[in-house]
């Protein structure tokens, strides 16, 4: 078991919800999905590579054979999977500090959710409803979400320069190269192993 691979942490959370509250949460997710400005805080938390919420209605757990006993549940369940850079505490602290209103809107429909502020009961709650990852794979273990975004900016600028480098005079190339350096100079962070506290 490891929740970590390279620079990314896999978090799994499951919380119970009364079925009538699920309808409200679905409507909220619909709004969040369709009104992109509402996602800005999530985008601004630039250490999240991927995240998803999945609502499982109480009668929708897959049943693939008659021999498999049917689930009899009172609650629907909200699953949350996140792939983020940094430590668990940094992540929850940032969630609480930056996304508290949004998180409250999403999780307030779950049983016993204490609110994301103050952070101590919020951390207690997340620790209680989290379950560990058995296997975790990432195609780019040494890169963070910001590394990826920066790499694509470098790639675009590099492609543009490389496409015309052959046809420019040396003087023109020098100017284009200087502009290229100005464009990429803040996106050259080195990827590599994450620092590990011993």
């Amino acid at each position, binding site marked *: 078991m490891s929740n970590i691979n390279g620079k990314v942490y896999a978090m799994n959370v*499951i919380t119970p919800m009364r079925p009538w509250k699920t309808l409200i949460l679905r409507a909220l997710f619909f709004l969040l999905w369709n009104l992109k400005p509402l996602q800005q805080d999530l985008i601004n938390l630039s250490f999240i590579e991927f995240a998803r919420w999945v609502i499982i209605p109480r009668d929708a757990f897959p049943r693939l054979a008659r021999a498999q006993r049917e689930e009899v549940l009172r609650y629907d369940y909200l699953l949350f999977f996140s792939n983020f850079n940094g430590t668990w505490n940094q992540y929850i602290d940032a969630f609480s500090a930056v996304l508290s209103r949004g998180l409250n809107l999403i999780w307030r429909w779950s049983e*016993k959710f204490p609110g994301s502020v103050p952070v101590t009961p919020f951390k207690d709650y997340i620790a209680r409803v989290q379950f560990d990852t*058995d296997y975790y794979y990432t195609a780019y273990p040494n890169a963070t979400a910001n590394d990826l975004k920066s790499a694509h900016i470098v790639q675009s600028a590099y492609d543009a320069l490389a496409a015309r480098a052959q046809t420019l005079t040396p003087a023109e190339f020098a100017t284009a190269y200087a502009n290229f350096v100005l464009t990429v100079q803040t996106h050259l962070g080195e990827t590599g192993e994450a620092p590990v506290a011993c």
Partner: protein
Amino acid sequence: MPNRSGQLYGLTLLSPILDDPRATPSHDLQIRAYLAKLPTGEASPFALAPGTHLARLVVLDDVIYVGMPSCEEHLKSKYLVFESNLDGDLDDYLTTLARTVPADLDAIWSHCVGYPGATDPVAFVAYMKSCQLDTTFYFAAVNDRTLPQSLRALQTQHAVTRFLADHQGLSKRSTDPARLQADFLAFAAKLAAEPLPRPGSSAPYRPIKTGGHNE
């Protein structure tokens, strides 16, 4: 469509695990034992089959009781959760997975109810889709690039960083435009000839830790 964000697809599967009191060890433990030894770097089955950005496999033992006054309840089955962030089309992804790493898939999912095996990709895809849950909300930080594009970009970023470091300051190769252009063209030709980095490569060695949630 919530399963999609731009070019990426968020796959969520819940496969019920066999509940056989005669099995020793139990099927969920056999899955966990296999996953504990499965490589997470270049030799990972998800690195060998194309298209996976990040993926996880988790045994969900039960739902979690959060305390009074909520009701305590339990699942009748344990479930294997498969969460994957992938390029392109789901059917193509699953079919390629079945064709590329059938032994690993069989070793994991043969402990699940109704699993048909990976030798028949059509049956395999149908089974996996019968376990699929629709994602309610999906977020991907970079959702307009495929995995090969991201791997290439990281490679380029690394190479460009080195090139710029070698061509800064007042040395002749930095200040002579013709020399700088020649160096850049040679660099571009060399970079274009380099193979794409392998998915999962350069994963640092990290012994398995069992330090709990806050590790």
